[in-house]
C-alpha cells in the first residue's frame, strides 16, 4: 500500500499480483461512512452534494483497520470511512 502525497494517489499491490491506483477524489466519493452514505433510509451527504472543496479530496493518512480494511483520512479531517479491501478492489484503477 503506497500513499503518494505529491500525486494524491493511493497505490495498492494486491496479494494476487494486481496493482491498482486510486486518486483521492475517487476515494472520497466512494466513502462508505454513514454520514456520507446516509443511514436508516435517510440521504447522506454525498447523495446531495454535487462537488466537494479541494481539501475534502486530499488524502493525508492511511491506516490499517484490523486485517480487513483501511481507514483513509482527508485534509478536511474527514476520516470516518472504513474501506474494506473487498470494496477497494471493486473501485476502477486509473
Amino acid at each position: 500500500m503506497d500513499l503518494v502525497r505529491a500525486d494524491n494517489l493511493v497505490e495498492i499491490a494486491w496479494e494476487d499480483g494486481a496493482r491498482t491506483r486510486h486518486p483521492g477524489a475517487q476515494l472520497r466519493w466512494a466513502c462508505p461512512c454513514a454520514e456520507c452514505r446516509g443511514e436508516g433510509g435517510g440521504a447522506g451527504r454525498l447523495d446531495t452534494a454535487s462537488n466537494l472543496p479541494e481539501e475534502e479530496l486530499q488524502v493525508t493518512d492511511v491506516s490499517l483497520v484490523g486485517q480487513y480494511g483501511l481507514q483513509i483520512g482527508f485534509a478536511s479531517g474527514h476520516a470516518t470511512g472504513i474501506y474494506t479491501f473487498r470494496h477497494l478492489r471493486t473501485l476502477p484503477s486509473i
Partner: protein
Amino acid sequence: MPVPSQQQVLESLATIVDPDLGRDVVSLGMIKDLRVSDRGEVAFTFELTTPACPVRDRFKGQAEAAVGSLPGVSRVDVRMTANVRPGFMRQPASETLPGVKQTIAVASGKGGVGKSTVAVNLAAALQQSGASVGLLDADIYGPSVPGLTGTSQQPRVVDQKLVPLEAYGLRLMSIGFLGGADKAMIWRGPMVSRAIQQMMSDVRWGELDYLVMDLPPGTGDASLTIAQSVPLTGVVIVATPQDLALDIAVKALQMFRSLNVTPLGLVENMSWFVCPECGHEHHVFGHGGAERAAQRLGVPFLGGIPLAEDVRVEADAGAPIVASRPDSASARAFRDVASQIAARTSIQSFRRLPVINVR
C-alpha cells in the same frame, strides 16, 4: 570412518516435513546450533514454533532416526526448545499490544456454551507447555474470568498502567477486577468499546507468547472493537453439538470472516456426558454435530470437551481443571484442543499483514 559434514546432516533433517506448515524443518529455520564432532557426535537444537506442539515427540524421534542412520554418526543429541514467533512476521510490533506475539480470540455465537471455561483452560494449558500467556476477559457485561480463576483483587497501577493479576502462571485482566465482579455494568456500546481498548493498551501485559481473549457471546461491539484494534492471529469458535447452537456459531464465524480474521477452528464443548454411576458416555446433544459443521464450513475441527462434573466443580472452585486435576480425562481433552490451537496459530505466523508506505 569419516564423519558426515554439517551439510549432510542438514540434508538428512530436511526430509522431516512439518505437517501443519507443509515445509521441511530446515528451510523453516527450526534447526539451530548444529555441531558435528571429530568422533561423529552430532548435537543440535530443534526449535519449535510453539511449546504446545502436537508433534513434538514425533519430530524428536524422526530427527534422531534421520541423523542416526547417516554413516559415521556415533551419537545424536537433540535439544527440543520452542520460540513462539510473532504473528504476521510483524516488524515493528503492534502499537496497542507491543510485547504480545500472538493474539487468540475465543468466541461463540450464543452464551452458555462454556466459552470462558474453554478460554481459561486453553490459556492454562498453553502456560503449562512452557509459554508465557495472558488472558483478557473482554466480556464486559458478564465477566467470568475472576470466578473461574478465583481472583478478585483490585489491580495495582504503576506508571499509569494497570498491572495484570497473576494466577496459575497466567496474567489476567477483567472488568470484574475493576468494577467489582458482583456489580452490573450498565453501559452503552461506545463505553464497552473504550473499556476494551483500555484493557489492551493501558495494561502492562509485558512480553507474552500468547494473549487469549475471552470475547462476549454474539457479534456485537466488543468483538468488533477487538478485531479493529489489533490484528488477531485467529479466532476459536466454541459451540455445543446441538443444531441450534451450531447455527448460531456459524454467525460468529461469518462475522470474523467478513473482518478477515482467520478462524483457527471449532471446539465442541459438552460433547458427551460421562455418567458417574455407570461410566457410560451419553451423547446428550447428539454426536459429531460440530465436526460435521466444521467440515461444511471449511474450518478445522479442534476437538471435543466432555460434559463432566469435575470440569464444573473445578470451575466453580476457581481453578482451571488442566491445573487442578491434570490427569483427568477432561484435562487431557483441553490439552489436546490447546495443542491443536497452538499448531494452527503457528501457521498464521507465516502470513503477512499489508504494509502502508507514505511517500
